[in-house]
């Protein structure tokens, strides 16, 4: 395994720019959650000229719909969901200053272009590893759309959440590079 880079969210522009596709990172700090329904609501809010549940500048958005927390636990199982479903919305949020996204799976060309244009980063967390990733979440609080249940927007405090840089601010994509290297 290559060296692991520790990063802190929200993400400084210089930190985002220094990350390269294939880098292993451990993310600590504050990240926000959002998935299908929350994204739809956020974009509708922008279209109406309303505020978002959080100021996206420099923030990292984790595409996750956690399982309910057991008594005494902060959160239930909490692995990434398929990011491609957020493709229609992500460029708008990146244009508003969003610096990072954590998810899994392929992104559209439009999203890649927006990542590059805004000096942002797309991180991959391990899909299916919800129990392990939940153990990296130290605090969780619903801050918007509570009626959406698991899809509500949450503010999470994370510590050493393992991820890989999938698309860097230069538009390089690990999914393409990795597959090419091992294809027979």
């Amino acid at each position, binding site marked *: *395994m*290559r060296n692991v880079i520790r990063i802190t969210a929200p993400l400084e522009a210089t930190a985002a720019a220094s990350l390269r596709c*294939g880098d*292993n990172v451990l993310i600590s700090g504050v990240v926000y959650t959002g998935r299908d*329904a929350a994204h739809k609501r956020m974009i509708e809010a922008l279209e109406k000229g309303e505020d978002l549940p959080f100021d996206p500048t420099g923030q990292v958005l984790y595409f*996750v*719909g*956690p*399982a*309910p*927390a*057991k008594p005494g*636990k902060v959160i*239930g*199982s*909490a*692995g990434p*969901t*398929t990011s*491609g479903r957020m493709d229609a919305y992500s460029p708008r949020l990146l244009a508003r200053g969003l610096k990072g996204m954590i998810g*899994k*799976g*392929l992104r559209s060309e439009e999203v890649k272009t927006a990542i590059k244009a805004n000096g942002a980063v797309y991180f*991959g967390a*391990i*899909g*299916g*590893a*919800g*129990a*392990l990733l*939940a*153990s990296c979440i130290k605090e969780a609080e619903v801050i918007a759309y509570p009626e959406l*249940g*698991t899809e509500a927007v949450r503010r999470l405090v994370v510590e050493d959440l*393992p991820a*890989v840089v999938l698309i860097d601010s230069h538009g390089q994509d*690990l*999914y393409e*590079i*990795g*597959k*090419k*290297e*091992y*294809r*027979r």
Partner: protein
Amino acid sequence: MKVINIEEIHAAVEKLCIEANCILNQDVIDAIRAGLRTEESPQGREVLRLLLENAEIAASDRVPICQDTGMAVLFVEVGQDVRVVGGDLTEALNEGVRRGYEKGYLRKSVVKDPFDRVNTGDNTPAVIHYDIVPGSNLSITIAPKGFGSENMGALKMFKPSDGLPAVLDFIVDTVDKAGPNPCPPIVVGVGIGGTMEKAAYLAKKALLRPIGEANPDHTYAQLENELLTRINDLGIGPQGFGGRTTALAVNMEVFPTHIAGLPAAVNINCHVTRHSQVILEGREPSNA
């Protein structure tokens, strides 16, 4: 005629929901361990190592392996000599799902209407497939299905003249297009023949067969192997980061079909290929 009380069904399904979601089956664990020994990509090995660590945490803390605890898919075999008493069988199965998802702190992911998308709040209704079989047992197999992988499935109605090579290409191509989205390493279920819905059903049912157990027909077992090799040569690797371990198994089920058709379905499962089974035995009515 023997009987089974719905209370027994409630309790059994509740337990199955929790077990299936929190405990990764040994065949899957063994296959990931085997992948760890052969995977060439360092990133890929790291992913496989973390998946094993995740399964350990899930089992010991009794938390779901994956936050997507799925739509509950049930395969139910009803013995023709058994009668369910105390209520409606379908409702009893749904009640078991309701209790299991609530008591197990499992995520409720089912929406009532595909367009309005309001959550039903209890993860029901389950998708239930019934078979009537000889005997007086009630066999219930639960296979909670997450949609990261479910969304990547495909079905195609081939012309008979297209033949086997086109069908095999379609299967490999479906996995290639899915790429990292279904959380590889995956298990690939293939259903060939029957009608459109029969092929899709067989593809899903194929996922229940344990990893390492080949199709009993030698010809199909060979095709399963050939497909597994071709899929692992795609280079997608664990989580799509590049590598050799894209699929842990390809399970193919085949059924007779019509002179004019060749239906083929692919159902992809992630590494969390969940399935738990219970067999309830019918009792004499006086003891029920």
